[in-house]
């Protein structure tokens, strides 16, 4: 017997439960945008090559275009719509707004979700590709501009807003207690 090609699933998004039928082919990105009217998550390439569709899955950033909706059942999903605290912007959002960390705005939700994770990953002591010494005894690297740029590199911005995005991430990271080196600000 041919397997069923669709399922009824429940997704946990921004703390709310959504029950919906999905074609198994439907990515989390398309389910958000086309079925749940959560259009803040953007489709830039649909191939994992731009980061515009970044969301948090169980607190970790992921590209929703390469995540099947059916496989996201049971995971805690945070989208850009769930980042602010009611009317109060998250400090990362506020920094993007204040420092003009965007232009057209299309990559912005992905950049912001990614930035939230960068700050968490750094706080957890994760090294990056530009961390000179990755051995655990070397300690956590300070968030220099170079570290922020490397960690944010999975989020492309075609308007060329990188300079102010890095400044926004640095400002928000510092406010969150990270050791931020002067060079980033």
């Amino acid at each position, binding site marked *: 017997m041919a397997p069923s090609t669709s399922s009824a699933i429940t997704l946990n998004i921004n703390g709310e439960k959504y029950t919906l039928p999905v074609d198994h082919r439907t990515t989390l990105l398309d389910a958000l945008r086309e079925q749940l009217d959560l259009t803040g*998550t953007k489709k*830039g*390439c649909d191939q994992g090559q731009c980061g515009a569709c970044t969301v948090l899955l169980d607190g970790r950033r992921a590209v929703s275009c390469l995540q099947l909706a059916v496989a996201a059942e049971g995971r805690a999903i945070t989208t850009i*719509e769930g980042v602010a605290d009611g009317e109060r912007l998250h400090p990362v959002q506020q920094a993007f707004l204040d420092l003009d960390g965007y232009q*057209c705005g299309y990559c912005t*939700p992905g950049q912001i979700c990614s930035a939230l994770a960068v700050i968490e990953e750094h706080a957890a002591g994760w090294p990056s590709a530009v961390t000179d010494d990755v051995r655990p005894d070397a300690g956590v690297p300070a968030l220099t501009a*170079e570290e922020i740029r490397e960690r944010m590199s999975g989020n492309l911005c075609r308007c*060329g807003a990188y300079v102010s995005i890095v400044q926004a991430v640095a400002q928000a990271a510092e406010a969150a207690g990270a050791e931020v080196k002067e060079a980033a600000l």
Partner: protein
Amino acid sequence: MTTTTRIAAVTGAVGSARTRVEGRDKVTGAARYAGEIPFAELAHGWLVLSTVARGRIRSVDDAPVLAMPGVLTVLHHGNAPRVETDYVGMLGRPNPVLGIFQHDRVPFVGWPVALVVAETSEQAREAAEALVVRYDEEPHDVAFFAGHPSAYTPQDNPMLQAETEKGDVEAQLDASPVVVDEEYTTPEEHHNPMEPHAATARWDGGRLDVVDSNQGSTWVASELAQLFSLDPASVRVRSEHVGGAFGSKGLSPHQVAAVMATTVLHRPVRVVLTRRQMFSLVGFRSPTAQRIRLGADADGRLRAFDHQALSLTSTVHEFIESSAVLGRVMYDADAHHTLHRLVRLDVPTPAWMRAPGEAPGSFALESALDELAAKCGMDPIALRARNEPETGPVSGLPFSSRNVLACFEEGARRFGWADRDPRPGLRREGRWLLGTGTAAATYPSGVGPSTAAVTAESDGTFTVRINAADIGTGARTAMTLVAADALEVDPDRIRVRIADSDLGPAMFAGGSMGTRSWAWAVTVAADELRERLSPGGGIPPEGITARSNTAEAIGALAKKERHSFGAQFAEVAVDVATGEVRVRRLLGIYAAGTIVNPLTARSQFIGGMTWGLSMALHEEAIRDRASGGHVGADLAGYHFAAHADVPLIEADWVDDPVPDDPVGIKGIGEIGVVGVAAAIANAVWHATGVRHRDLPIRPDRVLRAADGARHRAAEGARNA
């Protein structure tokens, strides 16, 4: 009648940094882009593109696809509604690619051959992929190279005079003690805005309603009206938020397809392009092969100037990448020649891409200037100062304002240029060789007719209506500030409505003309409104509205060379063992008239410079000669700069009053790109002693050049 308007700092809104009025929507995900507006009964269209580069469609096997789940229709040349392509629009005759599904000819890989419409996007995609289209294939040619035997000089192209000539270039070259004669190439480049092109079309009470992502709703609405033979008043196009455009978002086949499908199906139809489809459907920057010959006296004064640029176009439409126009503005010489030539290939028609012409042209020209400076033993900035023209080198017209030397002076001071040792290949830091370079920048300051309406509301607020497009430029915010100053009220009391063709005709966001054009119209209307508002007088419930139309005033504008100018500075690090090039610093100083919003203007300049960096080091679409299509037509195959590539970039400006100009605002969206690739290439030369005349400066090219240099050094040692 000439209307003199005024953009003075009455309330001080213009010139003060202000965050974007739609900023909160953008950082919370609330801003909805074209593909994100819900419609009941929405159907999804998926384009099917040709896989051959030249030939005819033999058959479109639509029957099996029509039987697939959810499929509503398959439109192709055998059944699609007819459209009219014999007209002259805002930018001339339409690109024949807009006449989709009208005949069986295929002129390039990626030509639209069908549209599959289904209930869901998954169904449409699967059905589109399953559609079998058979072709009678013909031999094709997609190979672009200098000296192509079919190259021709375009005659009577409405957009550009292909050739200008003054004096005897050959004689002056012969008489020049210092000569630079070099060839430069730039590759095919693609806009790749982050938001793929998307349009939803529907019929609403007898009117065609299109929710789109474009650079000008007036423009798109008028083209659609002509294509579908509709009364212009019965077409409405909206484009509230646009996720980047860069020249690629005018009218493309997807909007035409959506209108055809909604007409056939009587329900809303959305067509969204895939990233891969964007590589053949929305234009691109042609590759260029440029030859520059400069003849100079020993003191650097130019005697001969010759810039010849070859680019490609399609077999169905003529587009010229205007690379050789810079010299018509920047540098005079006793003999002066600029020439554009084209070769027709079996590829899509190129289009305007951020700083069209100036971007590739400035790479060649400003590299050649640097080569000349080195040959003359002169500082590159001094060489440019020596050749600063009094009037337009080709037109003879006066400049409305020209402050390029002030840009160099301020830039040199801030960059620390005075301490630079001009000799190449001397500075090392670990594995990196370091160097610095500079280049000049310029871009035309054009303007287009626009209408605007400004309403004084009874609640004390004001509503500005202008069919502008905000493609990331901050147009809403800029118009808020312009109106605030003209009305002499606080910006918080102003609401700006844009991006809706029902607001009346206005210039599109292109050619760095948007802000200048819209600000003019808004200021005229606001001035009139302010005069009509009597102090203490009441305002009726419907408000008081003043309207403007700048067509006449623009027509009366004195003929002058009107341009923005700038100076670019770059510092690079090159590892010649691995070929890696890193840009460490960029500084751009501009003379671009009145800067409306310093916060967003700085972002735009820096964005342009980031494009220049990306062009210098990364961008290149690769075309496969055998198939005629691209290889790696996606964002992993087509690299543009990522976060890690982009250092701290600084942009600033010098005072640039434009005495007789009614607006005083110049364009800033494109000049940031101009000259950056040359400044970087010049810095790579300064770091390594090797000239890179082919973009992008990829690691393999740096490695080959280093190998070559070693080889030459070894030969030199043998010969010594």
